[in-house]
């Protein structure tokens, strides 16, 4: 398993490197002078000159690329054009909020999606099946931001069951170590803080998790329907095994392979949805960071966000591949 993981990790290196090259080229393709683009319209000629020298925009392209790699290695992504803050600092401060949101959305989707898909398949043609199929269609067609607004309007504004915005009530005055508020609350034993963070996260997580939920329901259902007509399930029945063991050991485990793929792909797509969800619920995460950066053409920030998204995609891909290996022994070989 470790060898498998290492191998996959090494395979990811060229992909990431390729993306770094793309981002590098992208900045150099910006209209006009890259130094000016990185500094924004309001920069003085002296500032532009200084940056050009510092980044070596006057040097040969390969040398520039080498310097660029070195800067990335040091974690130097430059400073935000709008706030003047170090991009790395701004990024690290927001990053836990987004991860927390994405993880919560995915947990919501997986924990509900797999059982619903499974039971829909097992009771194919039943009312529950119809509801699952219809409901998942709804999940596909409703845009994330619209769902976010609706949820916020009904459950936060009208009913008042959940907070409308942010990640935690500032009056709680919670201690933060990692920036993952729920984790922090649990680690420090500040249960009220953790609970408050959960309540803040609930609606955004549901909004963001709707599409992956719909996907997982559909894929699980289709996959279970495939697997229950497999010969080995018939063998399991011929052995007189109980329905429970057949379901768990023989049907579900095999049916989860395509589901794992979808979970992997959808987790990547969550980051795109996070941009909208964070904006609606005023969560100060990478999503809204990126959203604002697009609005203000804040290239240093965008650059960092793109690399971040790519890195996340790569890691998730790796995890997906590893979960294959866990589920299916045949995948461990290749």
């Amino acid at each position, binding site marked *: 398993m470790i060898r498998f993981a290492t191998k996959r990790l090494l395979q990811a290196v060229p992909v990431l490197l390729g993306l770094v090259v793309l981002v590098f080229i992208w900045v150099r393709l910006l209209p006009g002078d890259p130094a000016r683009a990185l500094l924004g319209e309001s920069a003085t000629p002296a500032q532009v000159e200084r940056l050009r020298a510092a980044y070596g925009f006057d040097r040969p392209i390969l040398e520039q690329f080498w310097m660029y790699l070195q800067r990335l290695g040091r974690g130097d992504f430059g400073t935000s054009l709008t706030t003047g803050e170090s991009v790395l600092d701004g990024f690290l401060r927001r990053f836990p909020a987004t991860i927390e949101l994405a993880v919560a959305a995915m947990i919501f989707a997986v924990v509900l999606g797999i059982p619903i898909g499974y039971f829909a398949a097992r009771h194919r043609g039943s009312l529950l099946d119809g509801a699952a199929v219809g409901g998942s269609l709804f999940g596909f067609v409703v845009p994330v931001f619209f769902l976010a607004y609706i949820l916020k309007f009904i459950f936060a504004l009208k009913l008042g069951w959940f907070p409308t915005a942010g990640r935690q009530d500032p009056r709680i005055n919670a201690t933060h170590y990692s920036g993952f508020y729920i984790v922090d609350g649990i680690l420090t034993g500040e249960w009220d803080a953790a609970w408050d963070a959960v309540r803040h996260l609930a609606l955004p997580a549901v909004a963001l998790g709707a599409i992956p939920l719909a996907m997982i329901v559909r894929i699980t259902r289709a996959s279970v329907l495939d697997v229950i*007509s*497999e*010969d*080995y399930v*018939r*063998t*399991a*029945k*011929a*052995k*007189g*095994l*109980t*329905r429970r*063991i057949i379901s768990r*050991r*023989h049907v579900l*485990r*095999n049916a989860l392979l395509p589901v794992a793929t979808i979970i992997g792909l959808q987790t990547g797509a969550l980051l795109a949805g996070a941009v909208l969800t964070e904006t609606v619920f005023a969560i100060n995460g990478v999503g809204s960071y990126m959203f604002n950066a697009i609005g203000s053409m804040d290239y240093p920030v965008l650059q960092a966000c793109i690399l971040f998204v790519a890195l996340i995609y790569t890691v998730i891909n790796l995890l997906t591949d590893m979960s294959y290996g866990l*589920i*299916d*022994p*045949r995948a461990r070989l290749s």
Partner: protein
Amino acid sequence: MSPATAPVRTHGDLLLSVRDLHVTFPGHTRKEIGTRAVVGVDFDVHAGEILALVGESGCGKSATALAVMGLHGPDVKITGSVEFDGVPMVGRPERELNRLRGKQLSMIFQDPLTALNPVITVEKQLVEVLMRHEDLGRKEARDRSVDLLRQVGIPDPQKRIKDYPHQLSGGMRQRVMIAIAMACNPHLLIADEPTTALDTTIQAEILDLILELATERAMALLLITHDLGVVAQTAHRVAVMYAGRIVEQAGRYEIFDQPRHRYTRGLLKSTPTLVGEARDRLDTIPGSAFDAEPWDQGCAFAPRCDFAIPACQASQLDLVPVGAGGEHLLRCANPAEGAEQ
């Protein structure tokens, strides 16, 4: 190849009794009638007896076997009666069937490549059936599994038991399947074309293994095959099936020496046999079983039969005893004479 040496009439008590079995697969739409795969099949299997069920592809052999095991899906319509050890199987609740399957009766399938679960080890697939039916702990079940693998001729069973199915050859997988089916010493083993999917070089080995284990444990065997040659010769009795019905049934000497049904003769002619002169391999029956009409009007084989007479189409044909002894059953309006070939 060792043809079973037991005489025809050694069998003990009645173990499996199938009467007027019908299996209908659903059509694509609700209105459509569907496929009548089995159209009124009767046969018995006695304790310790080997019955060969023979017929062309698509004649309903597997559908019959699955009905006996209760393995058809809920949308497959099954009528008639299947009694195993005196208890009715058709319409029996799943829960009760589960107590019998894998223990009192078990089944080996045609394709060993797909019959084993690809994502769990051979050990787990053996242990689970033992722990389900026998009062064994995990450790004991594991030891028993290793023993079983040894008995079915898997070399180095201690090590191979950790393997996943894809790490084994087709023959080895079928051996594992046999071990699973034999694990709880069933009274009846159904082997549905257990060698068809295998390399010709190991077919004989696997068949011998099944026969040896079944004989050794005094199991009854329902051996399904499309081969009226070597395989069927290992049985005590042979039932020949055509288009969902049994057309002829007799002791193996009778069937091979004095086949009465034209279809049985055709099958024999198209199969090379061990005994007697080599027959022409190319001498096949014209037409195909898929042209066969349902049996509502006479014989379904009539359109392909050189000896068809008006009576073949006209009347309801029953499976009736012919000759002395009442052991030889035939469904034919114009049967061949005794020893004529």
